[in-house]
């Protein structure tokens, strides 16, 4: 009998337990190719287009738009016309019966973030995968380790990965020290020390990109390679209306337009994303820590830590990925870099390239690590 292909709610990162199916891009009876847009899914971070994991004829769409369903739930069924309808119905019934019990088991065994002592403070990390030189993810200003939800689990299939919350962020202690790039870089080294990791491939976004650059320059023995997504540290310009708005706004309706500056398509910013940023900012000490970091890194509305003059000294392979529609750090800062640094510019992409264009960014990182 011909094959029946299930399409399930994807799991984008470990924080994702359920997703809201916002809209279908196909109808039953249409044919879809692998990699084409199947539907839109909203998560706790941003909304994203879900690309069909397989090619085939769409026989069933099983979730109404506007419905929130758990990860792994059957969304659609693909099968060729020769598969009769009763066989499809039987398949759906059997899948859904099995899903209920498997979902409970999977939830119990999923990797969870944990806290460790590093450099005299509590740091939250999430480790997934095993083997090889570890891949370390460092988020940007105001973010947390869940910013890598579309990347970490994917890249963990072939190696050990570690994502961390910088001091002052997420589930880490709200003690940023000096709060400047060197201090934050020291905090990252302390995490590597605490984990016994000698060398790591780094992936850093924005302020995390500057931290990656600082480590690659100052601690070359610890850095195997660096992938910098819209990194700070390559030019003085920064959109201070973003930084100031992020710090100042405590109501969702006022914060939303600020967060929309992060992405090319403002619809990607979900209500839950806004709410999660507010919740993080409300944690005791978080606001003061973020203000300290902003004051140390962006005093006078300019980036204070710049590495452009020293890029020739980089000892490890470095690639830069930048959205051409970045409204926080201008993509022009990716120009004029040494020829040894590969630069990938992504069209119609904002500051959150790793979330907005997760598949492309993941592929660039995989190829780079090979």
């Amino acid at each position: 009998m011909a094959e029946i292909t299930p399409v399930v709610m994807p799991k984008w990162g470990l924080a994702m337990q359920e997703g809201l199916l916002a809209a279908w891009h196909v109808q039953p009876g249409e044919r879809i190719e692998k990699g084409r847009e199947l539907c839109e899914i909203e998560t706790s971070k941003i909304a994203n287009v879900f690309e069909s994991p397989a090619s085939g004829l769409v026989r069933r769409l099983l979730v109404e738009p506007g419905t929130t369903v758990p990860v792994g739930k059957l969304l659609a069924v693909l099968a060729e016309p020769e598969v009769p309808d009763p066989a499809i119905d039987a398949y759906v019934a059997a899948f859904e019966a099995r899903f209920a019990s498997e979902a409970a088991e999977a939830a119990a065994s999923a990797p969870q973030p944990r806290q460790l002592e590093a450099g005299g403070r509590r740091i939250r990390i999430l480790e997934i995968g095993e083997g090889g030189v570890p891949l370390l993810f460092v988020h940007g200003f105001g973010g947390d380790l869940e910013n890598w939800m579309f990347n970490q689990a994917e890249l963990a299939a072939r190696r050990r990965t570690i994502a961390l919350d910088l001091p002052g962020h997420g589930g880490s202690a709200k003690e940023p020290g000096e709060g400047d790039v060197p201090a934050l870089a020291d905090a990252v080294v302390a995490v590597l020390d605490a984990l016994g990791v000698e060398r790591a491939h780094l992936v850093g976004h924005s302020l995390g990109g500057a931290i990656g650059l600082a480590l690659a320059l100052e601690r070359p023995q610890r850095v195997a390679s660096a992938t910098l997504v819209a990194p700070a540290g390559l030019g003085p310009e920064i959109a201070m209306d973003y930084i100031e708005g992020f710090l100042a706004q405590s109501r969702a309706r006022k914060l939303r337009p600020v967060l929309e500056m992060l992405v090319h398509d403002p619809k990607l910013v979900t209500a839950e994303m806004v709410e999660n940023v507010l919740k993080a900012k409300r944690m005791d000490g978080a606001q003061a820590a973020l203000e300290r970091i902003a004051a140390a890194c962006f005093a006078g509305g300019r980036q204070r830590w710049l590495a452009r003059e020293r890029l020739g000294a980089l000892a490890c392979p470095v690639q830069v990925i930048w959205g051409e529609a970045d409204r926080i750090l201008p993509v022009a800062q990716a120009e004029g870099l040494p020829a040894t640094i590969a630069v990938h510019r992504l069209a119609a992409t904002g500051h959150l390239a790793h979330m907005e264009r997760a598949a492309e960014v993941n592929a660039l990182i995989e190829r780079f690590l090979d």
Partner: protein
Amino acid sequence: MPKKTYRQAINEALRQEMERDPRVILMGEDVAGGMGSPGEDDAWGGPLGVTKGLMPRFGRERVLDTPISESAFIGAAVGAAATGLRPVAELMFVDFFGVCFDQIFNQAAKFRYMFGGKAVTPVVIRTMYGAGFRAASQHSQCLYPIFTHIPGLKVALPSNAYEAKGLLIQAIRDDDPVIFFEHKAMYDEEAEVPDEPYAIPFGEANVTREGDDVTVIAMGRMVNFANQVADKLAKEKIGVTVVDIRTTSPLDRETILETAAETGRVVVVDESHPRCSMATDIAALVAQERFADLKAPVKMVTAPHAPVPFSPALEDLYIPSPAKIEAAVREVLAFQG
């Protein structure tokens, strides 16, 4: 993020603030329980177990079981606040406030004003409110509009466990007297609540749903009913904005007026009696400030002007329900001027 009940969230807020600040003390009827009797201390932790475990952790000096005399212990809490402690007193059911109202509205609420801003009264009075508990007329009222009426008091109504922890921590850190309303039908409801302490600022409403057609303004338990209605109507392509005002005093006028003007159709949901209520207060605010933006008269969904009935069937009819909210939303949508 861990899920916790409304009860656990309140208990955690109290514990973390007591750990952070030695001036924070608890007092009330049976907040520990077992005082003076043989057997287990901390037998109760309050009538619904909200403060359980705090007496063993902090001792009898900071968790005080009081006599059944609200006029005495609420007065003692107000006095302790005026002289340097930060007491959290539990007025078991808000229905009992009548015997201690002078201590609240004539003393606590007035000190800052009458002493020229030189006095602060950082007292929190936690209290249970709301119908649905089969507890009859004297243990089921809302009454938060009465406290909202008094200048000098702040009034908070958390709508879920996350809100409860953040608003209670803010209440304890606030230098003014705060009346903190816990809905007794919500103690077992769960939400994701961070382990770390966090404070939710007063006077900042939370927009829990966004839609283009009707604005529903609600508070306390009614926020959840309004959210249910919004989710249901979204499937019919009717967009409902839901505003959780969080605190009735201070009131986030800005968010209320903005969201009211955006849709031009407003429903206010208030579990208390309709006269001199939050519903009338907010309806009047919108009518005065945004009359030109309204496309329909403001609709109120409230309990009736009657005591809470003891008959379960009547009590169920008494409480503003999702069905009544939905009917009101459809009514303002259908209005043709």
